[in-house]
C-alpha cells in the first residue's frame, strides 16, 4: 500500500513530461548535426536545444523520477506513511517552480549555456535561481525520506534496513554530499553575478564547484537504477537476488567514493595542481569496482532465474529470461549498453588518455551510454512497472512497450559507437557547424555524423513509443488494475551477515572525510591565489 500514491505519481509525470520535451530537442540536434536543411535551423536554436535537452534529461527527468521512486520505496519497504508528506508536497512544488523558471529561461533563448552552465557564459538569473530551487526541492525530498527512515529505525531497533531502501538512502547521502558544491557555485558566484551584484566570476572555481556536484550526480542517477536492477528485475525475471550483502556493499561504496572524483573532468583545466588531479583520478578508478560487482551480482541473479526455470547448461538460462517483457528487457539492454559505457569511462578517467578524448564527440557518445541508457532506459522499465500500479490502470499499447527498449538499444548503438569513433578521429563536441568552417578534416567525420543522426532518429522513435505508452496508460488505460509492489527476495536471507554495512552514519562520515580531503586544500589554495575574474558573455 502506497499512502503517498498521488505524490509519487506527480513526480513521475513531471519527469515523463520533461523526457518528452527533451526528446524532441534531441531529434533536432541529431538531424542538425547531419546538416539537414531543417526549418528554423540557426546556431541560436541549436544551442538552445542542446541546453534544453541536457537540463531536462539530466537534471529534471532523472530527479523527479528518482524522487517519485524514492517515496514508493520508502513507504513500501518500511510499511508506513511518509513522515511529513506536506513537506514532500512543498518540495515537489518548489522543484517544479524552479524547473519552470529554468525551462522558460532556456526556451526563450535566455540561457543557452549548456547543461554544465560553465561561466563566463552567462544566463538570465531565472535559470540559475530555477536550477537552485530544483535542488532545494530535492533536499526536502531527502529530508522527508530520512525522517521517515529514522522514525522507523526508532520503532524497530536492530532490524535490518530493507535493501531497496539502503539503495535509496545511498542516493540521498550521495546527493547531500554532492550538492553543497553546486549550491556554493550558485549562491556565491552565478546568481549574484547574473543579477549584476558582482562584475566578474572566477571560471576555474566555478568549474571546480560544478564538478564537485557534477560527477556524483552521475551516481545519484545510477544508484536508483541499481535499486531497480538489484531489487526489482530479478523478481521480474522469475528469480531471486543472488547476494544481498554484495548489493549492500555496492551501495555503501557509492556513499564513500562517489564525490571525491570531480577533478577527472578537469584534467585539462589550468589552475589545479596535478597531484590533486591524480588523487581524484585514483578515486575514479576505485569507483569502477562497485559497478563490476553489480554486473556480476545482477547477471548472476538472472542466471538464478534461468536455473529456477530448469536451465542446466552454461548459457541456456539466457533463453529462459523474459525478453518480451519490457520491464525486463529495458534493464537487461541497459546493462549491456552500460558495459560498453564502463569501458569508455575507464578511458576518460585515465590521466593521459583523457587529453585524447576531452571535449570530443567521444564524450557525448559515452554519457549517452551511461545516463542516456543505463539510467534512462532503466527508468523507462521502472515506469512500465510502476505507472500501472500507481494509476491503477492497465498498461496500454503493450506492443509498443515491448519493442521500445530494442529500438532504443539499436539507436543508441548507432549513435554512440559512431560518436566514439568520430571522437577518436578528433571531432569536437558541442559545435553547430557541420563542416567546421570548411575544414578538410571534417569530411572524414561526415559518415560518422550521418550514422549518429540515424541513431538519433531511432532514439526519437523509441522515445515517442514510450511517451505514447505512458500517455495512453495514464489517460486511457483500463481502470481497476491492482498489483502489489513486491521486491526481489534474496537467494539466501541477509540474516546477520555484514551488519556493519547498515551503519549508514559510519559510511557517511567516511564519505565526508574523503570529500574534505579531496576538496578543502585545493579550493583554499585556489581562493588564496591571485585570480582574475571574467565578465559574462551571451553569445546567442
Amino acid at each position: 500500500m502506497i499512502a503517498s500514491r498521488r505524490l509519487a505519481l506527480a513526480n513521475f509525470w513531471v519527469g515523463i513530461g520533461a523526457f518528452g520535451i527533451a526528446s524532441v530537442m534531441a531529434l533536432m540536434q541529431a538531424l542538425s548535426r547531419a546538416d539537414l536543411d531543417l526549418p528554423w535551423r540557426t546556431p541560436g536554436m541549436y544551442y538552445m536545444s542542446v541546453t534544453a535537452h541536457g537540463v531536462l534529461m539530466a537534471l529534471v527527468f532523472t530527479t523527479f523520477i528518482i524522487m517519485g521512486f524514492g517515496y514508493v520505496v520508502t513507504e513500501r519497504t518500511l510499511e508506513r506513511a511518509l513522515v511529513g508528506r506536506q513537506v514532500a508536497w512543498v518540495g515537489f512544488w518548489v522543484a517544479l517552480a524552479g524547473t519552470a523558471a529554468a525551462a522558460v529561461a532556456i526556451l526563450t533563448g535566455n540561457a543557452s549555456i549548456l547543461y554544465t552552465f560553465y561561466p563566463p557564459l552567462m544566463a538570465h538569473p531565472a535559470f540559475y535561481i530555477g536550477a537552485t530551487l530544483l535542488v532545494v526541492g530535492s533536499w526536502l525530498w531527502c529530508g522527508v525520506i530520512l525522517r521517515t527512515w529514522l522514525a522507523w529505525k526508532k520503532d524497530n531497533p536492530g532490524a535490518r534496513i530493507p535493501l531497496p531502501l539502503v539503495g535509496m538512502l545511498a542516493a540521498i547521502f550521495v546527493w547531500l554530499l554532492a550538492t553543497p558544491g553546486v549550491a556554493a557555485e550558485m549562491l556565491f558566484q552565478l546568481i549574484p553575478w547574473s543579477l549584476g551584484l558582482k562584475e566578474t566570476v572566477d571560471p576555474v572555481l566555478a568549474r571546480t564547484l560544478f564538478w564537485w556536484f557534477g560527477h556524483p550526480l552521475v551516481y545519484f542517477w545510477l544508484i536508483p537504477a541499481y535499486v531497480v536492477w538489484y531489487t526489482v528485475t530479478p523478481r521480474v525475471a522469475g528469480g531471486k537476488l543472488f547476494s544481498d550483502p554484495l548489493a549492500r556493499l555496492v551501495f555503501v561504496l557509492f556513499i564513500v567514493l562517489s564525490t571525491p572524483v570531480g577533478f577527472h573532468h578537469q584534467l585539462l583545466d589550468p589552475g589545479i595542481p596535478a597531484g590533486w588531479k591524480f588523487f581524484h583520478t585514483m578515486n575514479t578508478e576505485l569507483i569502477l569496482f562497485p559497478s563490476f560487482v553489480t554486473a556480476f551480482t545482477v547477471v548472476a541473479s538472472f542466471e538464478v532465474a534461468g536455473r529456477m526455470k530448469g536451465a542446466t547448461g552454461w548459457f541456456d538460462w539466457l533463453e529462459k529470461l523474459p525478453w518480451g517483457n519490457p520491464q525486463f528487457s529495458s534493464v537487461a539492454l541497459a546493462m549491456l549498453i552500460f558495459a560498453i559505457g564502463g569501458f569508455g569511462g575507464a578511458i576518460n578517467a585515465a590521466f593521459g588518455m583523457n587529453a585524447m578524448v576531452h571535449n570530443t564527440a567521444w564524450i557525448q557518445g559515452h554519457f549517452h551510454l551511461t545516463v542516456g541508457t543505463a539510467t534512462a532506459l532503466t527508468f523507462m522499465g521502472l515506469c512500465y512497472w510502476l505507472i500501472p500500479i500507481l494509476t491503477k490502470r492497465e498498461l496500454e499499447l503493450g506492443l509498443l512497450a515491448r519493442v521500445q527498449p530494442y529500438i532504443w538499444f539499436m539507436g543508441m548503438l548507432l549513435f554512440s559507437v559512431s560518436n566514439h569513433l568520430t571522437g577518436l578521429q578528433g571531432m569536437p563536441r558541442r559545435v553547430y557547424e557541420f563542416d567546421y568552417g570548411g575544414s578538410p578534416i571534417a569530411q572524414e567525420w561526415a559518415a560518422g555524423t550521418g550514422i549518429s543522426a540515424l541513431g538519433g532518429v531511432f532514439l526519437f522513435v523509441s522515445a515517442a513509443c514510450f511517451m505514447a505508452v505512458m500517455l495512453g496508460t495514464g489517460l486511457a488505460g483500463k481502470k481497476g488494475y491492482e498489483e502489489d509492489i513486491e521486491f526481489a527476495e534474496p537467494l539466501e536471507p541477509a540474516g546477520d551477515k555484514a551488519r556493519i554495512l547498515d551503519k549508514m552514519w559510519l559510511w557517511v562520515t567516511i564519505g565526508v572525510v574523503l570529500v574534505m580531503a579531496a576538496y578543502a586544500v585545493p579550493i583554499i589554495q585556489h581562493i588564496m591565489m591571485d585570480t582574475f575574474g571574467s565578465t559574462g558573455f551571451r553569445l546567442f
Partner: protein
Amino acid sequence: MDADPSAPPGDSLRHPKGTLAIIGIYGLLFVVGWLVIYFFVFLPRGPLTQ
C-alpha cells in the same frame, strides 16, 4: 519442468558458472580494449604540445 522455488538454493544456484564466464570475458575485453587504445591510438599520437 521448473524447479521448486521454495527449495533451498542448490549448488547450481550458488555457483553461477555462466555469469562467471560472461563477466570473465567482459573483463578480458575491457582490459584488452583499454590496452589497444593506449598502445595503438594514444601513444602513436605523441605529446599534445611539441
